[in-house]
């Protein structure tokens, strides 16, 4: 797997939902080798503020056009600065990094995709890949957000032949409640057992999906996050508590940038994950 450092030009930069932007980048070399599920480390500007690169999954990969897209939500200083950058300017990419989504073994059963908030980003690239390889695949997308304003507009999903299940925590659109509750209920109401669950979203959601998948013996691929510095397995910063094959209870860590970001539910030691930072409230204070 070849990793590349490349200057990418911003071709389009559009707000798609509240605090949510789509960045279209001309990045020929990265686009040529990127796979759905992988990510790039993006340097927002030449200065030192912010200091580190920021990881973003591929939202769309268009190798023929030499283009990749990123869908991101403003979550802090870096993404805010990114949101201020204009068409024609340059960002620097390092990628593609990490592992990729795998296709389901069985294309005849449906697959379920679960997206929480900005977690929908990599699922587009995944859907492109699924349809390209398994054109008849039935896809059920469960897509939730805190509120309607944070959901992507329906049109951006029109291209895909999907069944979409919308939810919002406040009931302003779709099902009132968590996307995992909606998923649970839909399964209880007789949705066929999927051959694979793909999910991306907040950790609490991922935990829920993970539990469901383990309990029902359904394979799942979770795209997980961790704070990253290098993105290439050198700093060992992006650790997550994980199950060591020879000693499942041992203190052991995987590194999201190298061993992930796609993990199976059983590989993570969920009970050892610590919470430290509250959801950012950057629009209140600075």
């Amino acid at each position, binding site marked *: 797997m070849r990793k590349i450092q490349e200057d990418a030009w911003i071709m389009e930069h559009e707000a798609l939902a509240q605090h949510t932007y789509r960045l279209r980048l001309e990045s020929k070399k990265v686009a040529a080798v990127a796979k759905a599920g992988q990510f790039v480390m993006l340097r927002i500007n030449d200065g030192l503020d912010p200091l580190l690169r920021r990881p973003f999954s591929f939202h769309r990969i268009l190798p023929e056009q030499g283009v990749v897209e990123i869908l991101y939500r403003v979550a802090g200083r870096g993404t805010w600065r990114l949101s201020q950058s204009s068409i024609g300017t340059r960002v620097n990419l*390092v990628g593609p990094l990490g592992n990729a989504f795998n296709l389901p073994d069985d294309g005849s059963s449906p697959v379920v995709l679960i997206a929480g908030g900005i977690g929908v980003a990599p699922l587009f690239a995944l859907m492109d890949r699924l349809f390209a390889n398994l054109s008849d695949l039935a896809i059920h997308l469960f897509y939730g957000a805190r509120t309607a304003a944070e959901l992507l507009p329906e049109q951006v999903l029109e291209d895909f032949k999907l069944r979409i299940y919308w939810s919002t925590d406040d009931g302003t659109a779709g099902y009132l409640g968590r996307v995992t509750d909606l998923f649970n209920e839909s399964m209880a109401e007789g949705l066929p057992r999927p051959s694979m669950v793909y999910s991306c979203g907040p950790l609490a959601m991922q935990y829920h999906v993970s539990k469901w998948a383990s309990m029902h013996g359904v394979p799942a691929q979770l795209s997980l996050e961790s704070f990253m510095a290098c993105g290439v397995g050198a700093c*060992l910063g992006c650790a997550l508590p994980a199950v060591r094959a020879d000693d499942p209870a041992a203190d052991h860590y995987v590194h999201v940038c190298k061993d992930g970001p796609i993990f199976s539910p059983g590989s993570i030691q969920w009970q050892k994950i610590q919470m*430290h*930072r509250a959801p950012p409230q950057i629009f209140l204070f600075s």
Partner: protein
Amino acid sequence: MAKDSNASSSPPDLSVQLGPLRLKNPVLTASGTYGYGEEYAEFVAPESLGGIVVKGISLHPRPGNPPPRLVETSAGLINAIGLENVGLENFIKHKLPYLRTRQVPVIVNIFGSVLEEYAELGSRLDKVDGIAALEINISCPNVKQGGMVFGTEPAMAASVVRAVRQATSLPLITKLTPNVGRIGDIARAVEDAGTDIISCINTVAAMAVDVFSRRPKLANIVGGLSGPAIKPIALRCTYEVLQSVKCPVIGVGGVTNTLDALEFLLIGAKAVQVGTANFLSPTAVLEIIRGIERFLEVEGLARLEDYIGTLDIGCIFPFAEESCEAVGLA
């Protein structure tokens, strides 16, 4: 004559001699920021580097700290990796073979929690091929001394160096912590104890908290600050060390670009290590090596060694009457 003009048109000589260690150029990677060398090989041919300092190795594998392990700060990064590493045996079996295939000096950073571990690391690595030097990380708590960090006390620091010195004939680099009152005292102690080279600095003790969750941002509560923020501190520490010892010194801390590297060289460091900057750009080390070459060309210097340590701390008063001619103001 012909020789001279040849010399000036050939690329400048970047090689440096650090006691027993000769490096083709003064740019090393800092321990813990460059993995075991392979991680960045797609971006930088190891052969182009002055050397690679690998992630700190202990006798036995260590899982490291629970996450979060990293926090970004203004122009800095706090890490509390917890010295996660594969352990000596795995290092020798699984990491070193790759490095041996590449023509680059490999420096093994070692650490322990008691004196004896340092000594054993020294003696076991002494017998291993393909190692250019050991770098002793003394910024670790001594579990036999109530967790007091080895490197914060001259006598304790010296005892570590002596233990390793007796165990190996490999060139020894001792890496100092800045979290002390007088780094020069530590430097003198480890020089007397037999280190060939000193590198400084390791990270600066630091902390970050989240005002919303009211919790530390690192699971470990405190961590070590690195990156551009600490460069002025590292430069001062390196300067103090250089004034205290005769052995060669490697400057570490915040080296992010060519000018940063040159600053350490100017004050007298024989080489630099690049750490956090690798995260900002995986090719940072290459750009710095090329930048130094270009700088020497522009300055008309054939050898880097002619630049090292040429800091001039005397005062120049360009408008004092005697010196006016000199600045062309007569």
